[in-house]
């Protein structure tokens, strides 16, 4: 069936279109206008509306063991959702897999990446993702604190052997890319190390964080994985040490692609009487002059949330600030992690400055194709705060109103008031559509050109940008209307985007022996079996680069 989206203002930076254009959709993909004069079977009137590709979130913790532990830890918030919508801090979290899919779709997001899947939790993560309706999903698998990788580096094994191990991990876990989280830091924490810098070495292995990052960066590149190594740096949240860590990591990119996650949490200096200050301007300048690097923000918004991270060392340190005062710390194979509830308060100097630093980074990083729109859901804020963040980026007067509500001491510590930039619709579409698709290597989305999947978000423009992006006028997923006037009208299921590198047979045999001998585990348990997810055709394979 041929559908026509007529009369809408198409904002599609990937195809350099920004004007009133009719779009055609058939069999779930965008097609060229019919040349034979064939008329559409159905027309969706988009006159006066803004039409973009479906948005892509490259970093949002929506599934897996740690996310589910956060649900277990905080049942009171879910009850709050049920009985008092709109009244409690976490009433908009998107707490279940069901809500996650529906709420993302309502905002016009159609692809979301779960960025921290432990190899041992891959099947669990994919089971949750398979239960998440409408959106397409993808995962990044976590390496960099695992005994085998650290041993291979220590023992001087070849780059090929290490790449084979990475390929096996990506293939078994059905991931789209590789992430490393405080490389070596969790392994060091198991040795009772409490602070871990980029050039510190993990006891017993003699391997530094820098070596781990560089080794994984080379492996990812050599395997042709499109998404650059996704790095969560050392010293997250530590004033001074965090910005040193991210600067050192950025310089270590050395001309090759590297993605740095939630950089807001690294924009902290030690100036001022509270020994907490913004280094947003310096960090943005460093990003601007390091073209091989991409970043996402991890914007903080005010209210109750929960932090979920495989950075066990930093989560352990964060226990002291847990609100409510309870947390779960995991000592698993490799990374482990922690779940720590957190309440970002507008009246808190620290929290308000965190908010301002995120804004500074968004606005001072010049290229919207290298800075990605995230709250590190739910670590900086739930993804349901996105509409407010769009408004803050697009409207200086909204920012001003927020700034005026902050403690005076914060206003004195940020240059935010002086920043005049307002994101344009085209820049928003670059940051949330075109650029993420390029970053992930998913050429079939992020644009509205012929051949793209017909994942389309249609918004009703207005002065209130939060209203505009909070409830899409229409959302099409694979060519079907799934949202109309902000309400889900059809509940479909998307797929998980995965790479499928062919694992080396000798490495597979080696890993069978390794997991059995060392851990008493079957290597098969790390695999996500084809039939496990309960959907027909649950995966869509994205090719590696030649």
């Amino acid at each position: 069936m041929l559908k026509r989206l007529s009369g809408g203002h198409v904002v599609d930076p990937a195809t350099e279109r920004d004007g009133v254009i009719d779009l055609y959709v058939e069999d779930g993909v965008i097609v060229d206008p019919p040349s034979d004069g064939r008329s559409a079977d159905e027309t969706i009137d988009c006159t006066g509306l803004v039409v973009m590709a479906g948005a892509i979130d490259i970093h949002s913790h929506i599934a897996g063991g740690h996310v589910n532990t956060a649900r277990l830890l905080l049942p009171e918030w879910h009850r709050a959702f049920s009985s008092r919508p709109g009244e409690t801090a976490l009433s908009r979290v998107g707490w279940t897999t069901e809500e996650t899919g529906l709420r993302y779709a309502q905002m016009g997001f159609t692809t979301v990446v779960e960025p921290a899947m432990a190899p041992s939790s891959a099947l669990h993560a994919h089971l949750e993702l398979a239960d998440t309706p409408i959106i397409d999903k993808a995962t990044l698998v976590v390496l960099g604190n695992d005994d085998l990788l650290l041993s291979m580096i220590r023992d001087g094994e070849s780059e090929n052997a290490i790449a084979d191990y990475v390929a096996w991990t990506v293939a078994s876990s059905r991931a789209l890319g590789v992430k490393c989280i405080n490389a070596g830091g969790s392994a060091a924490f198991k040795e009772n190390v409490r602070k871990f810098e980029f050039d510190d070495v993990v006891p017993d292995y003699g391997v530094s964080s820098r070596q781990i990052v560089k080794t994984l960066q080379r492996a990812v590149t050599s395997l042709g994985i499109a998404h650059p190594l996704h790095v969560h740096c050392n010293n997250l949240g530590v004033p001074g040490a965090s910005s040193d860590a991210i600067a050192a990591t950025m310089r270590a990119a050395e001309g090759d692609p590297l993605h740095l996650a939630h950089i807001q949490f690294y924009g902290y200096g030690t100036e001022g009487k509270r020994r907490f200050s913004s280094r947003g301007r310096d960090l943005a300048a460093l990003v601007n002059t390091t073209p091989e690097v991409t970043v996402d923000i991890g914007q903080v918004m005010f209210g109750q949330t929960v932090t979920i991270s495989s950075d066990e060392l930093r989560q352990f340190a964060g226990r002291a600030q847990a609100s409510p005062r309870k947390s779960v710390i995991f000592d698993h194979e490799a990374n482990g992690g922690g779940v720590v509830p957190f309440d970002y308060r507008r009246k808190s100097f620290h929290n308000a400055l965190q908010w301002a630093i995120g804004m500074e980074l968004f606005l001072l990083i010049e290229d919207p194709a290298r800075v990605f729109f995230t709250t590190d859901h739910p670590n900086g804020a739930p993804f349901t705060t996105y509409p407010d963040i769009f408004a803050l980026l697009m409207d200086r007067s909204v920012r001003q109103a927020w700034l005026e509500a902050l403690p005076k001491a914060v206003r004195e510590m940020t240059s935010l008031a002086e920043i005049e930039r307002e994101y344009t619709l085209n820049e928003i579409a670059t940051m949330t559509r075109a650029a993420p698709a390029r970053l992930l290597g998913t050429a079939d989305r992020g644009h509205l050109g012929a051949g793209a999947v017909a994942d389309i978000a249609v918004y009703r423009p207005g002065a209130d940008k939060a209203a505009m992006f909070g409830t899409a006028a229409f959302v099409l997923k694979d060519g079907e209307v799934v949202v109309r006037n902000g309400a889900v009208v059809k509940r479909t299921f998307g797929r998980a985007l995965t790479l499928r590198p062919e694992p080396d047979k000798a490495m597979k045999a080696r890993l069978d022996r390794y997991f059995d001998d060392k851990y008493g585990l079957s290597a098969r348990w790390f695999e996500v079996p084809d039939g496990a997810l309960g959907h027909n055709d649950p995966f869509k394979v994205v090719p590696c680069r030649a």
Partner: protein
Amino acid sequence: MDRAWIDGQPATSDEALDAAAKLLADAVQPFVGGLRTDVAGLRAAFALAKDLGAIVDHADSATIEPFLSALRDGGAFLAAPAEMRRRADRVLVLGDEPATIGADLLTSLSTSEPDLGVRTRGSGRQIMVLGTVAGPVEGHDGVTRIDCASDDLVDVVGMVRARLAGRPIGEGPLGGTTIATIAEFVAAAGFGCIVFSPAEVGALGSEQVFGLAADLNAETRCSTLPLLGSDNAMGAALLSTWTAGFPLRLSFGRREAEHDAALYASDRQLSGAGEADCAVIVDALADGAAAAAPAVALPAIVLAADPAAAKAAQIGFAVASAGRDHDSILYDSRFGSFVGQTAQESSELPTAAAILTALAERLGGRVADAA
């Protein structure tokens, strides 16, 4: 071979499904329980329960409830068994239940040594059991046992915490010197591990154990391995949590999921003392019956791997056994997550998921959507 029964008489699957659908349609408050099945069966059971507005629980959720309760009240330190096998140099085993429900783990820990970590590798592994039996680790090198009754464990752990914090302690059930010995044992670990059964020590005891781990982590490293008695119940609780936001003992009676550990417990509902007036019970595992199957005082639709159990119900279906007769996804505590299990045998019996989905379709729900 008969596959379905109504009041003990053989019936076709269609007849039994029709009768079951009528029974459920006429019920005021259905209950969906047992839940001894794989992930596919659980998904189908939850989809049916949502459609019915049912109360939901697992037959063995009593074995995990104290753990979940302690975790959400005060947080936890949790380890993976395989990591502790490589890392822990000192293991404190609390109580008598670990010797039975954790026999494989204890054997694995007592027959291996830590091989990771400067602080732990090469020093061997010491195991201290506080209980009346040492079970499978009895007589192994490095194993000591301090006689301690289950009922005294909570007090003992509390006294160990007090001792470590430098607070004065009395004699208690074991005597102050013994408490000091235990405290020194755990404090001197490079990476300590506490093995315990939450069902044995209760929610309060579990909270004490997590508190002890938290205290120890101020200076050294320590984590815990709670032994949960039923992997299947834990898997069901995890799926329930991502599906409904709560770990079992919940009700969809008012559409949105509501959780109440006492109100929606299997025993209360199936005994007739609760709100339920009709039950769907899934018992589709090969490894024997539920730990303590309660008497069912309600009209029941039973899906069972044991045909005799199905035949004895008001309406019964013989179903394939998850993990044995068909490929399944099941939670496995050795791994700490879900694993794929390949079928060992072939069976012509339908899966529990297939029967539950067929039942939901007869009731006109949206179960197909959820599959």
